[in-house]
Every structure is written in structure tokens, then in C-alpha cells.
């Protein structure tokens, strides 16, 4: 269990210990960064993802067409014709412009909804698992109740009540995804809290809150990171599923999922409408996955 303790110096690093850390020159996070940068798949993915994010942010300003511009003469234009690098759709709208906007929307939905679910889920699950007893039971009962309602039920209700709204899609997806996260975190916490280093921390007189934030949560990072890499694609997919049902992002605004679901309908007539969005989506999600795996191997202190 000596590895478990290695977290403590990094976590306790106050102003007076900074000097010592400088002499030692290696904190847990320095090590993690070094290992992450040594992972080729992860570094390439980080580069590619950075490029995709930049494209999503600035790209839409640079395209010759806007994403909602209808060009009557360019209906079903194949790629590389009529100035459309990736072709045009059934309304003659430029696919490249729509793809960049769709990427922006999907990335935003994926990251924001996952961040929401991550924060709520980790705090909720770690608190319930660590405190145990009646509080655990109450907190997990609440999760059980929300869990037992189908996802689509929330979405349809939100939509008929407030109208279709992209913020609500964030909310609905984030509000459902945190439940799984909290269950996983609680399960891990249950076995973590019986480990010696937690007992040692308790013996040293740390408060429950400090034990949770300094000892439990850092040790949860491995499984949580893996789950986040599964959640971001899941969120982007959930959004695309809603789009397929006609409840996702509203026209003319678009998302990768909307583009793919429209492309799938015209698969045989205009394959480019399916191919380009699918490739973009797969590339984006693959990047998240490789970065997640890289982070997992880098952070996990048991790896040494």
C-alpha cells in the first residue's frame, strides 16, 4: 500500500513544502504528465482533438457559405463541385459549413453535459459511499427513483413543456448521465474506504470532507476517467438519437448526429452526406477515447 501513500505529499503540498518538492523535482502530477506525453496514441489524439476544437470554433467564420444558406442551384451537389468542398445537401446547403457548425454543437453538448454529470456524480457518489449508513441509503434512493424513469420520458416532458431548446438538451442529457457516474463512484468508494491509507488519514485526524477530496476522489480517477471516455460518446450519441427521432437540435442549426441521421436516409443517393459527418464523429470520439486511456495509464499510481 506504499503507493497509496504517495498521493499524500502531493495533496498536502502547502507553501512551506513547495521548496522540498522543487528539490525532489517530481510530484505525482509531473510523473503523470511525463507518462501521458510518452503515450503516442494519446499525444496524437490530443493534437488532433485540439485541431478539431479550433476548427469547430473558428471554422464556421472561414467557410465561403454559411451553414443555413440555401443555394437552389447546388441541390445534391457532389463534393468538389460548385465550390462545395464536401458537396451540398437536399437544400443545396454547403456540407462543410454545416459540418463545422455541427461539430461545434456536438462538442459543446458532449463536454458540457459530461462535465455536469461528472461533477454531480462524483460528489454525490463519493459522499454517499463514504458516509454510508442512512445518508447513503437516502442518497441512493433518490438516484434509484430518477434511474427508474426512462431517459426519453424526461426529454419529451422537457420538450413539450419548454419547447425545443438546445440548453434543455444539455440539461436532459447531463441530468441522466450523472446517475450512472454516481453509482460507479459509490461502488468504488465502498471498497476504497476500507483501505489502509484511508484509515491512516482518519487516524491522523482529517475531517471527512478532507478525506473525500484528498484521498477518495484522487483514487477514483482511474475508473472515472474511463467512464468519462464512455460518457462523451454516449452523450453525443444520445443527442444524435434524439435528432433521429426529430427531437434534437432544431433546423437550420445542426449537430453531427443530425447530419448523420439525415445522411443515413439518403445513403444511396448522396453517400457523402453520410460519410463526411460519420468520419468526423468517429475521429472526434476516437480522440476522446485514446486520451482517456492515456490519462488512465498516466494517473493510476498502481501502474509504477
Amino acid at each position, binding site marked *: 500500500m506504499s503507493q497509496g501513500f504517495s498521493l499524500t505529499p502531493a495533496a498536502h503540498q502547502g507553501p512551506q513544502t513547495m521548496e522540498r518538492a522543487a528539490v525532489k523535482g517530481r510530484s505525482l502530477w509531473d510523473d503523470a504528465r511525463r507518462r501521458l506525453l510518452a503515450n503516442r496514441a494519446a499525444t496524437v489524439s490530443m493534437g488532433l482533438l485540439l485541431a478539431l476544437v479550433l476548427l469547430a470554433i473558428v471554422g464556421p467564420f472561414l467557410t465561403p457559405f454559411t451553414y443555413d444558406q440555401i443555394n437552389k442551384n447546388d441541390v445534391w451537389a457532389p463534393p468538389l463541385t460548385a465550390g462545395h468542398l464536401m458537396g451540398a445537401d437536399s437544400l443545396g446547403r454547403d456540407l462543410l459549413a454545416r459540418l463545422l457548425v455541427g461539430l461545434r454543437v456536438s462538442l459543446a453538448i458532449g463536454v458540457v453535459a459530461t462535465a455536469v454529470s461528472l461533477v454531480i456524480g462524483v460528489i454525490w457518489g463519493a459522499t454517499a459511499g463514504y458516509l454510508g449508513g442512512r445518508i447513503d441509503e437516502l442518497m441512493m434512493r433518490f438516484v434509484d427513483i430518477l434511474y427508474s*424513469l426512462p431517459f426519453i420520458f424526461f426529454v419529451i416532458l422537457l420538450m413539450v413543456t419548454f419547447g425545443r431548446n438546445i440548453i434543455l438538451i444539455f440539461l436532459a442529457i447531463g441530468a441522466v448521465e450523472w446517475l450512472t457516474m454516481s453509482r460507479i463512484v459509490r461502488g468504488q468508494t465502498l471498497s476504497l474506504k476500507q483501505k489502509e491509507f484511508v484509515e491512516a488519514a482518519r487516524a491522523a485526524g482529517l475531517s471527512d470532507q478532507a478525506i473525500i477530496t484528498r484521498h477518495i476522489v484522487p483514487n477514483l480517477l482511474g475508473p472515472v476517467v474511463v467512464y468519462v471516455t464512455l460518457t462523451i460518446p454516449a452523450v453525443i450519441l444520445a443527442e444524435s438519437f434524439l435528432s433521429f427521432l426529430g427531437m434534437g437540435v432544431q433546423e437550420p442549426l445542426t449537430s453531427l448526429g443530425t447530419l448523420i441521421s439525415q445522411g443515413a436516409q439518403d445513403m444511396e443517393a448522396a453517400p457523402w452526406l453520410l460519410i463526411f459527418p460519420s468520419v468526423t464523429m468517429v475521429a472526434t470520439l476516437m480522440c476522446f477515447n485514446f486520451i482517456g486511456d492515456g490519462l488512465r495509464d498516466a494517473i493510476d499510481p498502481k501502474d509504477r
Partner: protein
Amino acid sequence: MFRFLLRRLMVAVPTLFLVVTAAFFMMRAAPGNPFDSDRKLPPEVERSIMAKYGMDRPLGEQYVAYVSNVLHGDLGPSLKYKDKSVAELISEGLPTSATIGLSALTLACLVGIGLGIIAALRQNQMIDNVTMAIAVLGVCIPTFVTAPLLVLVFAAKLGWLPTAGLNGIRSLILPVTVLALPQIAIISRLTRAGMIEVLRSNYIRTARAKGLSEARIVLRHGLRAAILPLVSYLGPACAGLLTGSLVIEKIFSLPGLGKSFVIGALQRDYMVVMGVVIVYAGLILLLNLLADIAYAMLDPRVRLS
């Protein structure tokens, strides 16, 4: 064990009750009603229809009436399908959805756990990278893309399998495969992550030191702990699969539960929605209980209490 089951049941019943209550009031809080969709009915006709279904009474009274009907085993009539009760709709849809969902889950577990173990044993080697790349692809491609693609290849072009409809085992192959693919991807990733973690632990080293065969170490000692994260995942995933996937049912024109639920929710068919919510919530509670029992059986450090 018996006390644990009893306690959990005593917890599950009020939970189910709270779920039903929450769903009932949330749905009624949404604007619109089942009879205002297509064309405007004359007010007196609408009033008499509302009276027929007891919807002219105060909400609290309707709620009490509904709960008491449910407790007597009556889920009520559908407000949209004439002459059909909710129980009939569910007993028509659930078997189809459950057959497809259960087959997909079985397939996904067999393939997913197998791939996950292989990948973990060959960590960072060729076979691991290839398996995980395919797993990522499996998660990334939506079912509404894989389904038409597979139909195009195996039904339209090759003619091996029927395109759609429910007609013997052969018509289930495509929907089950499409539904299993993303699950295979998720299960293999979870198994791989769990297995890599477990294989580093001390008791595995002990097993190695005792000279056990690699197969025995991995399958008997390792797998047991490695699938713990998977167990927590499978509970809710299973309930979702059993109650049907709207996308699959839509593309393959299967008479499943998913379709009636979403149509019901969009048209405010309160009775159908509540009926499906009850089935879904009941399944979730049951499967979570099973998952907890499985977790405790696999991990002796977690005690059921």
C-alpha cells in the same frame, strides 16, 4: 441474505410508488392533453370524452383512482388506441422487445467479455490495439447508421436475411446484431480495464507463485473481480434493452414496446406512458437488486446488509 432481500423489497415497493407518483404529476404538469392533437373538437364533445375517462375530476382524485386501479392490477385503457387496454398493448409489445434485448445482451456479454480478456492479456500489443479500436468504432457509430448499412448488405444486396418485420428466428438476426454491437464495445472496454487492474493485484501474484495455470488464474481468480464494474453497468443497461429500442423497432418495423411508449408520450396517452413507466421501473429495481447481489457474491469485501 434473506434479511437483505426482505429489506430491499421493503425499499423497492415505496420506491416504485414514488416513481409512479413523480411520473404521474410530471406528465400532467406538461401542457396539452390526449384529445387536442389533430383537429379542434367542439368543447362539449371534448368535455364528454374527458368525463368518460374521469379526467374532469381534480388531479388529486384522478391520482388516487389511478393508483387504486393499478393496485388492483388494472392499468387502464389506452386513450389513443380505441378498444385496447394498456395491459394488452404491453403484453403485445414486451415479448418481442424482451426477446431481442435479451438475445442482444447475451451475445454482447459472450463476445464482449471474451474480447476484453484477450485485450487485457495482450495489453498494448497489436491484438489489444485492434480490438480496442474496433470497440471504439462500435461505440461511435449510431445504430441508425449500422442498421440501414447491414440491411443494405445482408438483406438487399445478398438477400440472406429478411429486411424487416417479425417472422421467425432469421428476422431477429439483424436487429439483435445491431443492438449488440455498441454493447459489445462497452462491455469489452469495461472488462479490459477491470482485468488489467486485477492482474496487477497481490492475490494474482500469489496465484502465480502457487504455480496455477494461466487459464485458471485469469478465468477463475481474475475474471471474478475484473467484471465487478461490468456488473454495475449491466443492471440498468439490461432494463433498457428489455423494454425495447425505438430506433431498432422503427427501422425493422418490429411491434415492440419502445414505439408505443414514445408515441404515447408525444400524444399524451397518459395511460400507456404510465403503464410502460411502471414496467420499466419495476424491471430496473429488480435488475439493480440482482446486480447488487451479484456484486456481493463476486466481491466478498462488500457485505450485504
